[in-house]
């Protein structure tokens, strides 16, 4: 490819609008692609105090008015937001004299906009699936079925579907009946240089804000929703306390926050659990660095960026043996794998790490080496660029061009 490849990424979340894993993924991928010579335009939803247009690290970001049309429910809000996103993205493409080669949509939340832009400009559409409706909550109710159908439609219209783990590849094949040659596995990455670069020398002073000196910190980072398994972690607490003095620090927000808080209070262990809510990047990285163990007790996990972040921060890791986590972590080598949805197993795993310093040290050293070798964003963006180039070659040879 001689001319610069130009990609428009569509995403409902992009920093500072951070909800789950899509935001850090698109942020890091787009920056890395820009470093590798790809022109990246990100079109995303607005967020308080974030500028409508900016250029950051070579990535041009456009934030659309996503609350233009009042809606009776969330799914309708998504569809109306997509109409607006498509309209504004089309205007951006026209201002660029049509110089966008590929549209890349992230999850069902921007499906309609991506599909519309594909047909308006007759350019290939790629889709990355970070999760699925059937995996998260099933598709029992009307709105859940609608989300599932929208996901299916996106996979149908996409030239290629990128999944973040081999587990997600199998899952997508099953959920959407996709052929093998449509699917590409490219894992998520982690910006481990951020952890190395911003080391805080006063971690002991930082640590006292979260736990007493004699308490070992057990850290969870993620959305407080059912599939992340935080309730399993809470149920493991009393069993862990039988063996070691800990403080659970739970970072994140979600609809289960009140329920989890009530569960902890009901167990009489409110003094042993801190719910921090959403925290800024620096606080999060410092917590990951000073945690004695990081736990990812997910029930459904397409990948598990939280696990990579713990590995990059040099924190020993205990994860559910499920989904993408099973691929990232090698038991007894880079972390401890436990049975999903099993508080006894989880308590065992946490105690195993906390009670054996030498073992914990081995795990975190191996994990750090692995994350540098395999989950570097530069390598991941190269693989993504190769997919773009393959798709453009096929497109140029197709009747559709």
């Amino acid at each position: 490819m001689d001319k610069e490849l130009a990609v428009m990424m569509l995403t409902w979340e992009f920093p500072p609008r951070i909800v789950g894993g899509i935001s850090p993924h698109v942020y890091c991928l787009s920056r890395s692609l820009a470093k590798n010579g790809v022109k990246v335009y990100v079109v995303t939803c607005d967020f308080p105090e974030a500028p409508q247009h900016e250029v950051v690290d070579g990535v041009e970001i456009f934030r659309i008015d996503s609350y233009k049309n009042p809606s009776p429910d969330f799914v309708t809000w998504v569809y109306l937001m997509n109409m607006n996103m498509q309209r504004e993205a089309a205007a951006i493409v026209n201002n660029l004299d049509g110089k966008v080669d590929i549209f890349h949509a992230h999850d069902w939340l921007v499906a309609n906009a991506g599909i519309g832009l594909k047909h308006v400009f007759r350019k290939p559409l790629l889709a990355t699936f970070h999760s699925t409706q059937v995996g998260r909550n099933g598709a029992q109710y009307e709105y859940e079925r609608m989300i599932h159908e929208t996901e299916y439609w996106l996979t149908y219209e996409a030239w290629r579907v990128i999944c973040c783990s081999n587990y997600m590849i199998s899952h997508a094949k099953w959920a959407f009946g996709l052929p093998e040659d449509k699917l590409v596995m490219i894992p998520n990455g982690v910006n481990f240089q951020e952890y190395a670069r911003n080391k805080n020398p006063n971690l002991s002073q930082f640590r006292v804000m979260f736990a007493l000196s004699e308490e070992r910190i057990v850290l969870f980072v993620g959305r407080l929703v059912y599939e992340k398994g935080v309730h399993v972690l809470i149920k493991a607490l009393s069993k862990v306390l039988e063996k070691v003095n800990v403080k659970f620090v739970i970072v994140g927000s979600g609809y289960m926050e009140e329920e989890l808080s009530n569960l902890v209070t009901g167990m009489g262990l409110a003094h042993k659990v801190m719910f921090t809510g959403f925290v800024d990047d620096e606080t999060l990285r410092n917590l990951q660095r000073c945690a004695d163990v990081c736990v990812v007790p997910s029930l459904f996990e397409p990948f598990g960026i939280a696990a990579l972040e713990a590995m990059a921060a040099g924190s020993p890791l205990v994860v559910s043996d499920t989904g993408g986590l099973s691929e990232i972590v090698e038991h007894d080598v880079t972390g401890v794998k436990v049975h999903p949805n099993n508080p006894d197993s989880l308590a065992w795993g946490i105690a195993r790490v906390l009670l054996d310093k030498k073992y914990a040290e081995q795990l975190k050293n191996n994990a750090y080496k692995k994350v540098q070798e395999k989950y570097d964003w530069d390598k991941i963006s190269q693989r993504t660029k190769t997919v773009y180039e393959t798709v453009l070659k096929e497109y140029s040879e197709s009747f559709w061009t």
Partner: protein
Amino acid sequence: MLSRISPGSIPDELYFLCMLHNIGATAPEKSLTLEEISRWTVMKSEKVEENLKKLMEGNHVESSLISGVVRYFLTVDGIRKVLSMYS
């Protein structure tokens, strides 16, 4: 009892927070009065006021006085709480 997300199974004020998000009360310039919220959500003013009070205590909703009228909108924490249900 812990519950998975499904229509009717989330706490009232969380459902109300989602409604505020969906009707677009997400910034001071998009804030709504009690009356407007009551109309959009088809809820009685007293119920709206009760939910707003709980959400303000939890820092998910903020109020501001604009041209002598109290108007309400979601905070950043409130927006994140709603979005976390669907990501």
